[in-house]
């Protein structure tokens, strides 16, 4: 069980949205994490590598800054099933870049631009994620 936290969730969502808006205002780019992270690897089609590296460093540092500022620990419950996590990582990495976006690029930025393509992508990954959790927890794990 995890607690239903609608206020923290909404506040966090607004911060994510602010970051996306300011990135568009500053660099004119979509705040899509799979696009930013995927282009950390060569080949490089543009000169934005330092910017992408900085954004990713910010993501990595965020829980440390949060913990230092609030004095509260960041809670993450990550599965210790290493082969499962490795497979999950491969599928997330391949699928998000092959489909030109993930939860942030399609789900947040794409929907905000009223992109039909991003709506199709978001509905598709939500559907397969719901089915996957259903199978893992209620069919295999039942």
């Amino acid at each position: 069980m995890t607690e239903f936290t609608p206020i923290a969730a909404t506040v966090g969502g607004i911060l994510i949205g602010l970051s996306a808006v300011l990135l568009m205002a500053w660099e004119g780019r979509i705040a899509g994490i799979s696009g930013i992270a995927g282009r950390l690897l060569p080949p490089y089609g543009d000169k934005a590598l330092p910017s992408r590296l900085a954004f990713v460093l910010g993501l990595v540092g965020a829980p440390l800054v949060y913990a230092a500022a609030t004095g509260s620990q960041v809670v993450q419950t990550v599965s210790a099933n290493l082969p499962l996590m490795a497979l999950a990582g491969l599928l997330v990495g391949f699928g998000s870049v092959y489909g030109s976006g993930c939860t942030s690029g399609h789900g947040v930025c794409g929907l905000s631009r009223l992109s039909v393509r991003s709506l199709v992508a978001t509905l598709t990954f939500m559907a397969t994620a719901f089915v996957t959790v259903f199978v893992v927890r209620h069919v295999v794990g039942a």
Partner: protein
Amino acid sequence: MSFVVNLVLGLLFGIGLVVSGMSDPAKVLNFLDLFGTWDPSLAFVMGGAVVTTFIGYRLVFRRPKPVAADAFHLPANNAIDRRILVGPAIFGIGWGLGGFCPGPALTATALGAAGTYAFLPMMFLGMWLARWTVDRRFSPVFTSPPAP
């Protein structure tokens, strides 16, 4: 300057993930578990983020161009093709297995969970394989296209 701005925006995005609970795979998996221990919190994360971005983008697009670039770089491809179905379908399966999408997985880098270190290298491998698959001209050996 752009480095500092991007660092701060990455921090802001990551703190949003942490505050919202989206950085915790347990919360993500419970959101996806409609018929079990359902936790609807993540719908509020998406709601808060989309409404903020919807309004903010409209203000930003009134300007002729971004502060630090010559033009807005927006996706030009609107086609509903095979890639936009196959890619997200595969991504969703991985998301449902591990509870991590790319942003939350990156925020987990310094927090020391073994599962994170199984996930992240394979995520980058998958991203690289996808770029190789999409652009078949991209050879893993030659990084610039051969002369015609």
